[in-house]
């Protein structure tokens, strides 16, 4: 296949691209080709250079060396606007939408349509509606982005890119926030675009998805291109071995051997405000409890109210049989409850503070004498945590902002680990991190459970529910629709409970 293609001019050819940052060679002599009507999967661990390569393509970074050819013509992009005019569109991993503006305005930002020098809102709304319909979503263009769920925002983001009518579209981890149902929808859009002869570059950490949708796959490792082959050549194991250079036999650690069901170390009872439904569940000793279901079915409200963040009323929480009042995060922390939020950058990390300050923040009161912080003790504890989680840093005084996604994730975990919690609630703990980090986090979750900490994990990743959790609760429209154990934890059961009609389902489960 590679031979037949080289006879015609490819849509995009990146030649010997080199890009270095102080201290690292992010992209090292990478060649990359994308043809018309091709979905090109780009895979690699965090820090492998995928995003950097794409940013070079988009003109956000200038490459140190190398050329970019669009339809055989050499181009140099100094900024994103220039790249965009040449027909390159990027659907960002981190959404580039303004929440307080309307959907239509976001879609047409910077390219406002005008009539007699004034912006023509009717036209913008109409055209937005058409584009949104084209990609199969039905929302009002004058809706504010802030009122949309994450999945729909991602679709708006795609619509925004499509208005420019780009020929090469980069999807930088578009599925990270989507449930399976929405992924299917997205794939339909991708196939449509492919039919129209666009070149599509698809970046994702979910290998199954990449294998499913791509025609050609390029694997990157340590800033270098490792292999480019037809998708049919690969399977999951092969990709992983190319990605990390070693073979993974098991991504997930072994599940708990014995769970003493009678020994409930955590129990929750409360009424979900949004749906007026009573929710009851508990965690037994040694058990990792998974919470799943489609997005926005009330899972977040329930789990956040464990940490004293609203969502439920008449909350009754028991830890080791002792009833505890939790009205605020402060009380929750005092009681030994930790919450690892979903949106790490906004809720979990002080980006401009150092690693030390970040990890130390929640437990500062434990290390002070006479109101002064014992710096040496602090340093020692934090270095221990950094080592345990193998966070890759040069010094604990480094600013958090400079870390990569996977390391940030570990940082958030570390922050809560030193507080020695009794209950840990994790929301999407592996969102947007690479396989090696994932494996590390899975191992850590298991260790926590083995140390008699009640671990509750919310995840939209089906594999995680199946591989990591000892018991899985599925929520659907504010109901607990399934309580799966051992062998019951399987794809079809999870899907069934996630999408089934809920009329006469039991809400109280143990």
């Amino acid at each position, binding site marked *: 296949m590679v031979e037949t293609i080289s006879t015609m001019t490819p849509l995009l050819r990146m030649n010997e691209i080199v890009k270095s940052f102080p201290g690292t060679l992010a992209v090292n002599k990478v060649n990359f080709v994308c043809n018309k009507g091709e979905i090109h999967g780009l895979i690699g661990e965090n820090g492998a250079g995928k995003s950097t390569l794409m940013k070079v393509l988009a003109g*956000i970074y200038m490459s140190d060396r190398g050329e970019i050819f669009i339809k055989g013509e050499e181009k140099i992009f100094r900024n*994103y*606007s220039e790249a*965009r005019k040449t027909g390159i569109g990027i659907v960002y991993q981190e959404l*580039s*939408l*303004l*929440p*307080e*503006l*309307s959907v239509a*305005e976001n879609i047409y*930002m*910077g*390219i*406002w349509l*005008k009539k007699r*020098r*004034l*912006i023509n*809102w009717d036209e913008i709304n109409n055209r937005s509606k058409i584009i949104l319909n084209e990609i199969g979503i039905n929302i*009002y263009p*004058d*809706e*504010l982005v*802030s*009122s949309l769920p994450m999945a729909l925002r991602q679709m708006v983001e795609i619509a925004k890119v499509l208005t420019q009518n780009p020929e090469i579209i980069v999807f930088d981890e578009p599925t990270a926030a989507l449930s399976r149902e929405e992924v299917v929808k997205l794939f339909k859009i991708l196939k449509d675009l492919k039919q129209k002869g666009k070149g599509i570059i698809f970046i994702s950490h979910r290998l199954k998805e990449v294998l499913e949708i791509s025609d050609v796959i390029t694997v990157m490792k340590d800033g270098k291109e490792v292999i480019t082959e037809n998708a049919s050549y690969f399977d999951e194991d092969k990709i992983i071995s190319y990605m990390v250079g070693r073979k993974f036999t098991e991504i997930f650690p072994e599940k708990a051997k014995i769970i003493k069901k009678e020994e409930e170390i955590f129990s929750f009872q409360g009424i979900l405000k*949004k749906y007026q439904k009573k929710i009851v569940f508990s965690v037994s000793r040694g058990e990792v409890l998974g919470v799943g279901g489609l997005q926005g079915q009330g899972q*977040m*409200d329930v789990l956040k109210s464990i940490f004293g963040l*609203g*969502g439920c009323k008449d909350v009754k929480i028991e830890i080791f049989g002792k009833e505890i009042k939790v009205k605020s995060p402060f009380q929750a922390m005092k009681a030994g409850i930790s919450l690892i939020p979903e949106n790490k950058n906004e809720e979990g990390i002080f980006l401009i503070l150092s690693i030390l300050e970040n990890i130390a923040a929640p437990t500062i009161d434990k290390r002070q004498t006479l109101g002064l912080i014992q710096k040496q003790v602090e340093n020692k504890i934090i270095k221990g945590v950094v080592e345990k989680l193998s966070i890759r840093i040069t010094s604990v005084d480094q600013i958090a902002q400079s870390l990569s996604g996977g390391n940030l994730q570990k940082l958030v975990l570390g922050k809560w680990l030193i507080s020695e919690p009794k209950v840990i609630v994790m929301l999407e703990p592996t969102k947007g991190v690479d396989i090696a980090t994932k494996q590390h986090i899975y191992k850590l979750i298991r260790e926590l459970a083995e140390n008699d900490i009640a671990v509750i994990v919310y995840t939209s990743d089906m594999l995680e529910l199946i591989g990591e959790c000892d018991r899985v609760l599925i929520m659907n429209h504010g109901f607990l629709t399934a309580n799966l154990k051992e062998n019951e934890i399987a794809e079809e059961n999870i899907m069934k409970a996630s999408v089934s009609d809920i009329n006469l389902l039991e809400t109280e489960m143990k």
Partner: protein
Amino acid sequence: MKEKQQNLRLYIPVYSIAIAIYIFAGIIEPTFFTWNNNVNLFTRITPLIFAGMAQTFVILTGGIDLSIGSIIGLTNVLAASLPFIDKPLNIVMWIFIPPLVGLSMGLINGLIISKGGFPPLIVTLATGAIFQGITLFIMPIPGGSVSLSIARTVTGTMFKIPNSLIIFLIFLYIFHLILKRTEFGRSIYAIGGNEAIAYESGIPCSKVKIWVYGVSGLLGAFAGMFLSAWIFSADPLIGGPYILNSIAVAVISGTALSGGIGGVTGIIGGAYIFHLINNILNLLGISTFYQFVAKGLVLILALTISSSGITFNIRSILRTFFLKTKPIEKIGE
């Protein structure tokens, strides 16, 4: 939530509070409702409306303009120091010189902030001090004069309708249109929402920011000119109170200090609230230092009401009473 709903959410509380305070003032002093008093009120709030608009533009981008008081002072002094009083040339100069000076002072602010990358708070504090110095150099003590015809036109009435009302309504509409329907206006919202995203969407951020401070200076000059016509002379220190008052008016009228949310539609309400509080406190015969305390408290109350939570309830109350439909529940993530 849709855009129109958001606008309602922003403006309903401002105007309800303004009307409530207005009625309260009328109850304790019946002459308050007379047309004469209202004409007077319109004239009094006009400079505050201009200053509030100026500040709103800047705040929408996420900045702040502390030099607005000095710009008002300087343009006020300039407008009253022009030669050839009561000759046509004086009128022409009155129309063109202060706005040009105000605009250029604003542009200087914008250039320093945008090109230098300095925080607006510090830059405008510094330039404000410089402008104030220039003002005092030109006119150390209150004085000066303007052409009688200017004063008559600006503060007079036409068919019993005060000209000041017409003036500020026209300008409010123009600047509302600029914010909602021009590329410049929408760029302001985008920058206030997230400058990085705005930049990546191809918006010339630094250019827009320079002009936003320019507009602020221009509107400040309008306030200064209006004051010169109204008091028929100039006072170099007249602008001082407008620094904080303009910020307060902008925030009360629904503009978020963080930028990206708000507009000029609520400013009449905001200016009314601010001015009426003073008025009422005077009517009640409360001594000056208690007045400051009371004013602060009322402002905090107004801010509490205009921040989202209670606002939403007002809407649902209106719905339940008038439309008999189910109130929308706020859906939290």
